[in-house]
């Protein structure tokens, strides 16, 4: 491959790839995101390959660029994540866009025969809404996709992420070409400023202002760093983008390099995402080969190099100064600011750090212009946001919606409501730095400022839905356990504060809490928030503060009545024998390992609560169903 020398040449190639692709209308796309692979999509892919080859031919882009396709030709490709991971493996058949869920290798022949050869839908493999028998043949009709606006994730699931030509055919690198040929670096920054794009990694700082600061900072060498250390439990937007559309991240970073005056960039990916690392490596190699990365990009005098750094398992490295330290090969510990990274970052040079999703928004922004970008969203948050929707919700997966979409739309329209039709209790947004919101917030628009006013934050975009069977005190303990373990230990407020908060919460769920613990918990939480060194420490208390604010009665029930209203905390459960059902057979007493049950034969037995260890052995032994657990 000869390097592309100009924007026009790139355009010509794009047209050529599109024309070649049009020679074949039949295409089978198998999702090969982490979720679908775990569900066996690679075996499905192999079976589909065999099935196609039985009666037809598989052609790829290389073939189509050289010659005409035979009549019975089909394209078969693996794609990135389509978002509806729970239903994997997912298979899409073009041009009718039939979408099949839970596909197994033995379904391959039928799919090819029916959908590829006869253009018919295989009904039994289509998506059925839970609790109804309504079939949905096509992706766009499925409620999960209907309210979404897949802009950043638009390519994921529709193309082979390991082929740069497919990205180019879908207007890839056009944003870069336009930036390099029609805009000066300052004009690119101007455009990003005008678009109102805010950092999508958490705090929502205006991206353009960050870019401007790095541009203006004095220094010969500057760096662009992409934060792909998506450590928030319950979030996987960045993983899906890196795996499903790696070139988009690259393109965004190269444009950023041009704008701020950097010649080198680093992508920091967490070690838990091996597939993302692999795809990014491949993408960098391809981009270099095509002259879109490296020396004299697109024939201009702008040169840019990219490196990948693999994380080593430290949550705190998601914090920008810690991430920079980790790239430098040191312990990933935050440093006090100022100076900000824009002044003194990687290797002491001005550094632009944005997260994966932010960079992935840049190509579209530069291709379509700031105005088109800002046409979606609210008055202060523009564009779209990807969320990982998980927890006790019917449809889990990766979604993308315009900023300002309400929680209700996300949870009930896209998510399909609560699993098992239980009651909605809370939604945890923003991971360990975020907060739990309640039913009263369901009509809250999801944008940076509305969330902040409700005491939450966008965070990276994990949405974990919780039903009435969830104990909010236990949830707070869970997050505190996480932050306490992940605290880097450098500053005392975070190191000691999270440990003390965890101790108190552990005491409360174990039934040893006192009422004054709540005030102490609140006091420490505020101290940790006010005095910690880095963003992670400052937000570590959020899950505690938000649950205390919205679910105080649950805390009170734990400490005052020694009762867990959701029936989750084992130490607060009691096992009782219902006198009217008990026939006094003594089976329970015989099985009790601590001899807590006593009574007279043929008369109701009783359990000595102070002896009982709540093992539950008696419950399964009782032939009359007289023993049960109460909270």
């Amino acid at each position: 491959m000869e390097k592309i020398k100009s924007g026009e040449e790139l355009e010509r190639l794009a047209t050529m790839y599109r024309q070649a692709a049009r020679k074949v209308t039949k295409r089978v796309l198998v999702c090969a995101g982490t979720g679908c692979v775990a569900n066996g999509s690679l075996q499905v892919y192999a079976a589909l390959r065999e099935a196609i080859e039985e009666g037809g031919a598989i052609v790829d882009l290389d073939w189509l660029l050289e010659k005409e396709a035979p009549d019975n030709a089909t394209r078969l490709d693996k794609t990135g994540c389509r978002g509806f991971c729970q239903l994997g493996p997912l298979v899409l058949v073009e041009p009718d866009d039939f979408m099949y869920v839970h596909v197994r290798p033995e379904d391959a022949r039928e799919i090819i025969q029916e959908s590829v050869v006869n253009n018919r839908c295989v009904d039994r493999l289509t998506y059925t809404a839970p609790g109804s028998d309504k079939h949905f043949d096509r992706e766009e009709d499925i409620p999960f996709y209907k309210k979404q606006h897949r802009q950043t994730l638009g390519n994921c699931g529709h193309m082979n992420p390991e082929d740069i030509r497919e990205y180019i055919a879908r207007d890839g690198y056009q944003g870069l070409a336009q930036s390099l040929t029609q805009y000066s670096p300052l004009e690119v920054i101007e455009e990003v400023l005008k678009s109102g794009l805010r950092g999508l990694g958490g705090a929502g700082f205006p991206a353009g202002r960050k870019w401007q600061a790095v541009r203006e900072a004095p220094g010969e060498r500057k760096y662009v760093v992409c934060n792909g250390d998506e450590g928030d439990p319950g979030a996987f937007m960045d993983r899906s983008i890196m795996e499903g559309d790696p070139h988009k991240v690259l393109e965004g970073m190269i444009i950023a390099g041009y704008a701020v005056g950097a010649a080198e960039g680093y992508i920091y990916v967490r070690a838990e995402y091996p597939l993302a690392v692999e795809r990014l490596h491949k993408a960098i190699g391809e981009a270099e080969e095509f002259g879109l990365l490296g020396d004299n990009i697109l024939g201009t005098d702008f040169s840019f190099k990219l490196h990948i750094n693999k994380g080593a398992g430290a949550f705190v490295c998601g914090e920008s100064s810690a991430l920079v330290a980790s790239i430098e090969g040191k312990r990933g510990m935050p440093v006090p600011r100022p100076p900000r990274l824009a002044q003194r970052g990687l290797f002491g040079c001005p550094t632009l750090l944005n997260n994966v999703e932010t960079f992935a928004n840049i190509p579209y922004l530069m291709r379509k212009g700031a105005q088109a970008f800002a046409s979606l969203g609210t008055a202060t948050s523009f564009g779209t946001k990807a969320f990982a929707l998980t927890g006790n919700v019917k449809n889990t997966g990766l979604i993308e919606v315009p900023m300002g979409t309400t929680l209700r739309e996300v949870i009930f329209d896209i998510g399909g409501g609560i699993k098992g039709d239980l009651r909605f209790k809370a939604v945890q947004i923003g991971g360990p730095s975020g907060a739990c919101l309640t039913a009263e917030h369901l009509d809250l628009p999801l944008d940076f400022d509305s969330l902040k006013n409700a005491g939450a934050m966008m965070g990276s975009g994990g949405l974990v839905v919780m039903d009435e069977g969830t104990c909010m005190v236990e949830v707070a303990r869970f997050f505190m356990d996480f932050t306490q373990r992940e605290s880097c230990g450098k500053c005392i407020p975070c190191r000691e504060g999270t440990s003390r908060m965890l101790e108190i919460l552990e005491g409360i769920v174990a039934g040893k809490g006192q009422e004054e613990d709540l005030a102490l918990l609140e006091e420490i939480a505020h101290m940790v928030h006010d005095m910690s060194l880095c963003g992670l420490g400052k937000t570590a208390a959020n899950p505690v503060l938000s649950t205390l604010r919205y679910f105080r009665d649950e805390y009170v029930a734990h400490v005052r009545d020694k009762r867990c209203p959701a029936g989750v905390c084992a130490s607060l459960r009691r096992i009782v024998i219902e006198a009217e059902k008990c026939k006094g057979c003594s089976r329970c007493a015989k099985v009790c390992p601590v001899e807590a049950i006593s009574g007279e034969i043929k008369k109701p037995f009783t359990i000595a609560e102070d002896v009982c260890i709540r093992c539950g052995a008696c419950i399964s032994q009782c032939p009359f169903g007289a023993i049960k657990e109460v909270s």
Partner: protein
Amino acid sequence: MATLESDCARRFKAVNEIIERHGKRPERLVAVLQEVQEVYRYLPEEVLQYVATGMGVSPAEVFGVATFYENFSLKPKGKYIIRCCDGTACHVHGSEALLTAIRQRLQLTAPETTTPDLMFTLETVACLGACALAPVVTINDKVYGQVTPDQMVALIDELAGGEKDGKD
């Protein structure tokens, strides 16, 4: 004995190559340790010393980095590394029960994470990023989604059984 020595020599050579490949640059320390760990499956203390000398950084610095990151282990790990996700989504989908089942099957107590025969290591991770498939477990990087405790035990039985058959 001869094989043992040559095995040592082979690994030692690999470590030298890794240090060379990264050009002895201190900022490559994390990457060097990651690759060294792939050779040994853990970071033996004497190797850390050697890496320090080879890269021209102090042993304290190398030890500091090796103990800071969770992915580094100073103790030998098992042949199969089971990583049980305890992220938010997995937690609300019952990862605790899964962990208990694995611990029971492998007879591991909380502080002990590797079986004495060095077959299995159990680790918990904060999030594997496959939340839609919660609860999730990986065994040597292969992802298993929506796992039940029974399936998990069966999986371990299968792996342990395969090992026994291989030896006979």
